[in-house]
């Protein structure tokens, strides 16, 4: 009986460990949320990896693109253009932490879209980009 209670404590402990370290969302969840958002725009016809790829490489006003820091290959390690700070791979295939936390995804889209385009990205652009990133293999 006592041993059972102790084991119960252990099991609960392990469970909390497992639950806590699991990712909050999957890239699929985040893509679905973007799709729901984009669907509200009239004429939405789905996301395209091809469009996402050109969006990733197209330079904005400041001669910057996503690839300026994340490199031409989103599965490779990047480097901040100004500070040299290492940036872990962008593509979920190469870095499973990516697109697993909606709050973080929102924050970094806001920041980086503003840096590159001087505006926020649309749900269409974000969805195209994520669709492209999900096609990238290691």
């Amino acid at each position, binding site marked *: *009986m*006592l*041993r059972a*209670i*102790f084991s*119960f*404590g*252990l099991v*609960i*402990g*392990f469970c*909390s*460990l497992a*639950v*806590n*370290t699991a990712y909050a969302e999957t890239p699929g969840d985040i893509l679905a949320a973007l799709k729901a958002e984009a669907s509200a725009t009239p004429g939405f016809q789905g996301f395209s990896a091809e469009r996402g790829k050109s969006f990733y490489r197209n330079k904005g006003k400041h001669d910057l693109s996503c690839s300026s820091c994340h490199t031409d290959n989103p599965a490779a390690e990047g*480097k*901040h*253009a*100004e*500070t*040299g*700070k*290492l*940036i*872990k791979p962008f593509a979920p295939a190469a870095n499973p*932490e990516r697109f697993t*936390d909606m709050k*973080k995804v929102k924050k970094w889209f806001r*920041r980086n879209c*503003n*840096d590159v385009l001087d505006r926020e990205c649309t749900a269409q652009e974000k969805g195209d980009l994520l669709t492209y990133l999900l096609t990238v293999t290691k």
Partner: protein
Amino acid sequence: MINTRKFSRTLGLGVMVMVAMMYVAHVSNARADDDDDEDSGHRPAIVDAKWASECSACHVAYPARYLPADSWRAIMAGLDKHFGSNASLDPATAKEITAYLEKNASTRRHQSGKPVLRITETRWWRSEHREVAARHWKNPKVKSRADCQACHTTADRGDFSERHVKFPR
């Protein structure tokens, strides 16, 4: 039938194990949240988790001790125009980080007038780097003067000591 003391002791032990595990999970979670910085080596003794994760996302987390408090206040108040980038934080995070920076700031008196916003513009930094040859600064592997890590190989661990300096070729 059941020895109550023994029972509560075992239950207590079970709960303690549980709490310990939740703590480990919490700590490892905080680490996972740290965008681009996963070092586990040496760090200065007092570190604020929010400072460590937020301020190391785009550059090395520049130690609080390298600028006086009024400089940090000015930097934190102007995050929306942070060296060409809008690095705004939510108010609670900004408040916590500002408090941490103020508390651990340099106490050196610096030139009067406007607060210095770049560590590289302090007299201290310039004097420390006066022997660095121009060719190192021109090396494309040294992105800018903000790229401490290019030569200070352990800067990401908060260790800027000279013995870990290695000039890239």
